[in-house]
């Protein structure tokens, strides 16, 4: 069996598990995992396949959450239109910030995205629409397409699973498309990609917009699930968290970021009572992952599997 078939088999198995999961695990926790799994997978598209480390992805996640919460709660949009509005807003934001950020490489790219995200954060803090420190609370879940009642956790779970599957499929298809191959070429050797005639900046921008849009989709969905958009979603700690999830699961692996997201959410859930130690634990996981298993969980397993097959 070759690598790609194995990958598809693993994903199909995981999908079946996800279908059955809400009968075993608390559905809201599962939905939180799915939202963050999508967020991390979207982030991974940039760091894992283009080699660009964004330290500002919270602006897409949080920004979209605010737009969805505002359109649904204040303007009375149905949930599907609210999610669409949030996702589109994230796409526009990603286009505007991407044009600026891709002007610098490497470490500067990380600092530029972090600073741009901090700007969005201050906007969320000061703007009259966002409720300042309180955020937008009590967002109605409503009825999707006018008939699916989302106030039922189990129903909402399957809607979230459908959104996650859609987003994940988009990412999977992107990675395995000719476009994705060009992205990998840019990651491996940018000057060579340029000399082969690829407009590297346009490819980077497209990847940035796609990644930001899907991160926005995750944030919008989260706003409906928790009926809340808050400053936490847009703060730099959130950008750091998604970096951690992706790093732990495996940079540049297909399912790694989702695995990392699930583990970090479980960890937060377990250590909820420990307060500030959550921050310390996350820091320790960061340091250990960088020092001991840089490929991440999925990456190390894949490397192990290749070694065995030889």
């Amino acid at each position, binding site marked *: 069996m070759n690598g790609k078939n194995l990958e598809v088999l693993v994903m199909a198995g995981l999908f079946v598990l996800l279908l059955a999961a809400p009968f075993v695990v608390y559905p809201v926790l599962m939905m939180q995992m799915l939202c963050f799994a999508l967020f991390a997978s979207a982030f991974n598209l940039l760091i894992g396949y283009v080699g660009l480390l964004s330290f500002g992805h919270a602006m897409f996640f949080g920004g979209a959450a605010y737009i969805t919460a505002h359109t649904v709660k204040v303007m009375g949009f149905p949930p599907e239109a609210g999610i669409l509005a949030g996702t589109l807003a994230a796409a526009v934001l990603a286009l505007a910030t991407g044009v600026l950020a891709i002007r610098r490489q490497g*470490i500067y790219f990380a600092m530029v995205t972090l600073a741009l995200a901090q700007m969005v954060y201050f906007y969320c803090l*000061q703007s009259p629409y966002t409720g300042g420190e309180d955020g937008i609370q009590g967002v109605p879940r409503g009825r999707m397409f006018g008939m699916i009642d989302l106030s039922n956790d189990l129903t909402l779970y399957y809607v979230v699973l459908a959104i996650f599957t859609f987003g994940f499929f988009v990412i999977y298809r992107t990675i395995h498309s000719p476009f994705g191959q060009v992205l990998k070429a840019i990651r491996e050797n940018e000057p060579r990609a340029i000399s082969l005639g690829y407009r590297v900046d346009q490819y980077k921008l497209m990847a940035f917009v796609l990644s930001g849009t899907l991160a926005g989709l995750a944030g919008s969905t989260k706003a409906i699930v928790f009926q809340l958009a808050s400053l936490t979603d847009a703060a730099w700690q959130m950008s750091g968290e998604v970096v951690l999830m992706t790093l732990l699961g495996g940079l540049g692996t297909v399912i790694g970021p989702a695995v990392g997201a699930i583990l970090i959410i479980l960890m937060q859930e377990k250590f909820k009572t420990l307060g500030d130690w959550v921050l310390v634990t996350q820091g320790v996981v960061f340091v250990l992952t960088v020092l001991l298993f840089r490929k991440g969980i999925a990456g190390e397993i894949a490397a192990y599997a290749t070694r065995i097959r030889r």
Partner: protein
Amino acid sequence: MFELLGVAPQALFAQLIVGLSNGAFYALLSLGLAVIFGMLNVINFAHGAQYMMGAFVAWMLLTYAGLPFWAALVIVPIVVGAFGLLIEKLLLSRLYQLDHLYGLLLTFGLALIIEGVFRHQYGVSGLPYANPLPGYLPLGFMNLPYYRGFAILFSLIVCLATWYTIEKTKLGAYLRAATERPDLVQAMGINVPRMLSLTYAFGVALAGLAGVLAAPIYSVTPLMGSSLIIVVFAVVVIGGMGSILGSILTGFGLGLVEGLTKVFYPPASNTVVFVIMVIVLLLRPQGLFGTPK
């Protein structure tokens, strides 16, 4: 008294002094980042946390040992610098062969650990630190608080001394040479790994020093580093890390601009540095003092 664009000169000059003292911290921190980046090719994300540590060590020295500010000004950079030395020896030195991004990720993790420990121990509400130089100098057109004046002058001297050491002395020549070709410098019999360790320790000590200077101005809190470091990153992007003098100038200049914004359009004072960063990225992507690659 005359008015300037509808603003009383007292308020204007007061904000200029506040802006300049903020600029002094930007300059000290971005200088430390630039020195570390120049030698180690690592962006030290823990820089803000180390600045916060500096303020806390000064507070601890005063509270638990009764040592005054002036003693802290000497002791703290040594303590925080030694902490940096330990980090470099134990952790960072293992990553030099890898992509620069791993250094960033490692120091980000360290920043979370340091901040979490201090938050657990001291909470997030600020601890006061008594001003060692109370009072102000009446200049007629404004009152200059002694301490702010001292902080600006002191950090300016430290910045210029660092610039002189790196650009004009023999030690600085070794450093610059090791930045360009570490292998050749090593072959000349200079201990490059030790230089890397000491450079990191020195950059971290600068952050600690900035922390001591900041303690009497801002309240000492575990959060003081993380909010500042993001602005300092923007300062570094604006200035470019290629030039030592450039990062000093950019730091002070942006502090000044921020102070002016507070006078003329307060809501934008949080974001003005980021807006300038956007403009610089559009017009001169390599930064004001950077060289195009």
